């Protein structure tokens, strides 16, 4: 029993997000950075570049390469995770790179790379969404030109009900998980994955709910960035 009378295990309503805390510009040596807490997730994102792509044969003479690296700390999950890239994190790195690349003006920086490091310090379901959200804030903090500030949020299905932002227990016991990343200005979908089964109708409902959630997270992202720079005044 994961949902009873419209209330979930952790007391949330079906369309309610977990608490989110975002802080921009936390690392001195990175060009841009972000620390994000989303429910039980704790994520650090750092952006380096645009910088010269090395070795030279990986350079693209027409555009910059966006190279995101998603990594889970060995202590981020209950059972110790063997450190280093695995099949899952390689996949998440790839889809994150592609999601971020589609909003960045890569053609402005030919022959360079933009490196995005996403470190999951503590994981509790929905880390890829939290990772993209944190990476977006770090990219803006690094002053990288973008069409929009990307944002991600998941929806899913538990006990036959479509809900927003699954927690760890709901993710394990539930029927489906649907992470979505969008560019909030025109609702362009940057990432869409699905685990589990949904009917067509349920899928549409979940997608709408996830987009609604994304827009709420987008507000928090903008607030975090303005918070860092609000004191900036020019004489």
């Amino acid at each position: 029993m994961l949902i009873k009378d419209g209330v979930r295990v952790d007391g949330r309503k079906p369309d309610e997000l977990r608490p989110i805390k975002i802080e921009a510009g936390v690392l001195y040596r990175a060009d841009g950075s972000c620390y994000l807490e989303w429910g039980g997730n704790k994520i650090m994102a750092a952006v380096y570049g645009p910088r010269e792509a090395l070795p030279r044969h990986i350079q693209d003479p027409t555009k910059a390469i966006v190279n995101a690296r998603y990594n889970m700390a060995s202590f981020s999950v209950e059972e110790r995770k063997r450190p280093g890239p695995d099949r899952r994190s390689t996949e998440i790195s790839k889809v994150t790179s592609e999601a971020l690349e589609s909003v960045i003006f890569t053609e402005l920086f030919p022959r360079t790379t933009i490196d995005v490091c996403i470190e999951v310090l503590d994981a509790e379901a929905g880390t890829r969404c939290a990772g993209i959200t944190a990476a977006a804030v770090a990219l803006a903090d690094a002053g990288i030109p973008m069409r929009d500030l990307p944002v991600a949020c998941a929806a899913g299905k538990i006990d036959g009900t479509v809900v927003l932002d699954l927690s760890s227990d709901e993710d394990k016991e539930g029927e489906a998980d649907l992470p979505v990343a969008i560019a909030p200005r025109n609702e362009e979908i940057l990432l869409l994955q699905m685990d589990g089964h949904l009917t067509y109708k349920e899928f549409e409902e979940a997608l709408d709910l996830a987009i609604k959630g994304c827009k709420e997270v987008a507000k928090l992202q903008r607030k975090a960035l303005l918070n860092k720079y609000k004191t900036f005044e020019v004489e």
Partner: protein
Amino acid sequence: MMRKIVLPGTEVGDAKSKLPGKGVFKEGNKIYASRLGILSEKGKYINVIPLSGVYDPNVGDNVIGVIQEVFKNAWIVDINAPYPAFLNLENVPWRVDYGETSKYLKVGDVIIATIAAIDEAKNIDISMKCKACRKIEDGIIIEIQPSKVPRVIGKNGSMLTTLKKYTQCWIFVGQNGRIWIKGEDERVNLLIKAIRKIEKEAHTFGLTQRIIKMLGG
């Protein structure tokens, strides 16, 4: 004066009445900011002045570079940009014969140069044929964030004049965020502290006054 901070994707104007300048892009009939910065309107143009980011080279900038590689007819110079810069032996103030490049500038040598040309593939040519250009033989180099360089210089060079007046040091600020300092050890230390303070408090009011106070004015 408080200015408006914009984020990527923030709508900043109408494309019918305004033109997109730097740091913005046009989509449909609207102009949006493409990066984090301060909104500024100059005539018909809408610009976003960046608050962060790496050094973006422009033709005519004076920069401080470090020789990275020596070829028979050119040097490759690190100018703190995403791209290395080329310094051809034609563009130095000395008469250099083909193959004799390393007699004049070796790997690790520091120079002041000006950016001569940038093509669309972002190949950067620099030249040492300018008034300030020279090989740096003494003093020290410190690095600051390139976006803070205008603050260290100040309006019409006011901050730079202040720093020079109170510390009696020789200062040269490269647009790429590298600063060359020369002077007595004690005063140089004080100056570095002052520059770090400017970098940290770049966004606040009355900074010049506080710097004067700090330097014992």
